[in-house]
């Protein structure tokens, strides 16, 4: 019995390619976080019990491509350990009206590993979609792991011990996004609601992001530069396609080039530099002030007692 519900050690052989949109990931994590926060707030003292949330994923299946666009939450009945069917159907109809193209492709849940009860729910969904997918998000934060803690499972009919049974097998997926989605998800992901609302921390977060972006740009340009220098010296064979791409990249900037633009640009640039200069001078004067205070308290014999100095 253990093997039939064990986690898919085999990888999927159905040949379907899965594409996942980041919106789904944000939705699932938001659902989970929200419920955890509510459970903690409504007063269960100590560690709140590990919750499992459930929901449905929808998207488009075109031939061999399965693209998962969106997701919504479902009500789960803990007693019977099944999903609320009428609710699911109402939601499905509503979504169909807005997105006629999207079908129910599967369902999601939270956990580190697959459980036995998951197969039951999976089978229940099979009447909507003959081969649903199961998304599993692992909420444990592990800073060592570089990849997303999300796994996609398919169900396959395998013959085990002479008995044909359904088991979950893991499938690989890629993340796919459109520009608008990327911008909005990026924006949502960067908002820290609890403590980052002051202007200073937001500015610091913004500048750190910009700093890392510029650093990455700089390192990539350095690599290209190195490569071009090597080609010029003759160490590396010249690749015309690459050179064409580099040339087009270089021609993209500067976007405008006229004397008036130069003047305005330099004026703004110098203004920013003056602000930075002022900031460094202020910081320096502050340190100097503190230093002088410390020095006078340490070394001046008739220094302030109770904060009064003798004036001439």
């Amino acid at each position, binding site marked *: 019995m253990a093997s039939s519900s064990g986690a898919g050690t085999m990888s999927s052989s159905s040949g379907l390619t899965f594409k996942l949109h980041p919106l789904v990931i944000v939705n699932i994590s938001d659902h989970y976080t929200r419920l955890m926060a509510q459970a903690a707030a409504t007063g269960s003292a100590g560690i709140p019990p590990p919750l499992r949330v459930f929901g449905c994923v929808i998207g488009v299946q075109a031939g061999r491509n399965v693209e998962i666009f969106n997701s919504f939450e479902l009500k789960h009945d803990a007693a019977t350990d099944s999903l609320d069917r009428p609710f699911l159907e109402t939601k499905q109809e509503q979504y169909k009206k807005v997105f006629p193209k999207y079908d129910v492709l599967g369902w999601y849940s939270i956990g580190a590993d697959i459980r036995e009860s998951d197969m039951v729910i999976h089978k229940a969904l099979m009447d909507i979609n003959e081969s649903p997918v199961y998304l599993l998000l692992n909420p444990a934060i592990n800073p060592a792991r570089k990849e997303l803690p999300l796994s996609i499972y398919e169900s396959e009919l395998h013959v085990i011990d002479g008995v044909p049974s359904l088991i979950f097998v893991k499938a690989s997926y890629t993340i796919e996004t459109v520009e608008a989605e990327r911008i909005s998800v990026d924006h949502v992901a960067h908002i820290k609601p609890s403590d980052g609302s002051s202007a200073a921390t937001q500015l610091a977060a913004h500048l750190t992001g910009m700093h890392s972006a510029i650093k990455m740009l700089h390192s990539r340009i350095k690599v290209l530069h190195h490569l071009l220098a090597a080609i010029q010296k003759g160490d590396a064979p010249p690749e015309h396609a690459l050179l064409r791409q580099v040339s087009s990249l270089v021609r993209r900037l500067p976007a405008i080039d006229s004397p008036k633009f130069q003047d305005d640009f*330099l004026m703004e640039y*110098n203004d920013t530099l003056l602000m*930075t200069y002022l900031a460094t001078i202020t910081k320096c004067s502050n340190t*100097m002030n503190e230093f002088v205070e410390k*020095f006078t308290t*340490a*070394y001046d014999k008739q220094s302030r007692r109770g904060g009064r100095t*003798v*004036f*001439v």
Partner: protein
Amino acid sequence: MEQLVTQVQGLSGSADDLGQLLVLLRQNDDAMRSQGARLQPALHALDPAKHSLGFLFILDGRWSAGPSREEAENFLMSVTNFITVCSPEQIRYCPDKFNSLCRKLREHAMNMHRPIRAVLPLQVAIRKFQPSSEYLTPIHADFLLVCLLSKCYKAAAPILEDQIFEIDPKKTGLVPKDYLLYCYYGGMVQIGLKNFLRAMELLQHAFTAPAHVMNAIAVEAYKKYVLVCLIHNGQVPPFPKYTPSIVQRNLKGCCQGYIELVTVYNNRNITDLQRCLTSHEEAFRNDKNLGLAKQVVASLYKRNIQRLTQTYLTLSLQDIAQTVQLESAKDAELHVLQMIQDGEIFATINQKDGMVRFQEDSEQYKTREMSQRLHSEIQKVIRLAKKLTAVDEQVSCDQAFLSKVGRERTRYDSDDFELVPQKAFSNF
């Protein structure tokens, strides 16, 4: 004597040998002093470049009696030669001997009334003696003095450009008087170079140096400081926070005439200022500040013309002459022309109808040179800030500071009593 010479030749190799040699030489120091002129052949036997340490000691012993008039030339030649070729690492082993040698050089150059001869050797000596350009040495004070006496201000300029961050008496044999003299003479050299801003900074350092008693150098520096402030800014700022309290209390009492000059200057009346100047002329002459005081009067004209730019947009030359109490429109034109050339005001003179039109600062801040300049300024300030934080941390860990702060803390918060570590690690 010969054995000493051979030892010097033998031991002038590596660092440990030099340490040994130093001990040896110090033991024989008195003996060498008594020998005097008989050490001359020993000097010929040694090579100043390779055996600098030994050469230094023997040279000092040779001339310890002080050269007489005839030998002064020889003395100067030999010391100049030594300084030019000596090796920096070796002379740093014995700072006080080197300092006394340079001082003798300076004294004798002055006695011979040819201070200019000491300028170049002392400059070379400073560069060789400093472990890095941020260190202050006693030779700085001597060097600046000879530059002043010989009026070679330009020669002193590169030395004054260095930013001094390190004061280390162990390495350089510095005493506070040298520091004060450096500030005072440096200020005077800057006045000679007409860098009034830098002169103000240096003179201010002289009288704000930590002190427990009043100091003649500080008083003189303050007098010059007042005059330079008037020339450059038109007003004298109050004492900065870090002026030692004893200086704050007593300084004004020592320079009455100058304070009076400041109050009269603020009234902006040329004739009053002239009167005040003549009444205190004796005092100024004794302090050798009469030239500076006359420059103060000249600067009042400039100050008044500058004030006119804030009121008027265009003005005729005749009116300028009248308001500023100049003789004629011609004088006014000359003054204004000079100020435009110096960059003190922005104006155009229309010679046809004798009108002057005042303008705004025409710097638009939209050139590449400006952004490069701003970049370098920002870098300078960042470097300075780093040094400041380092020094700040040093003082925070200092014994004296912690004991004073700890005492105050225990007095006021007895509830949350935090144990201030009494034995903080001290860096001295």
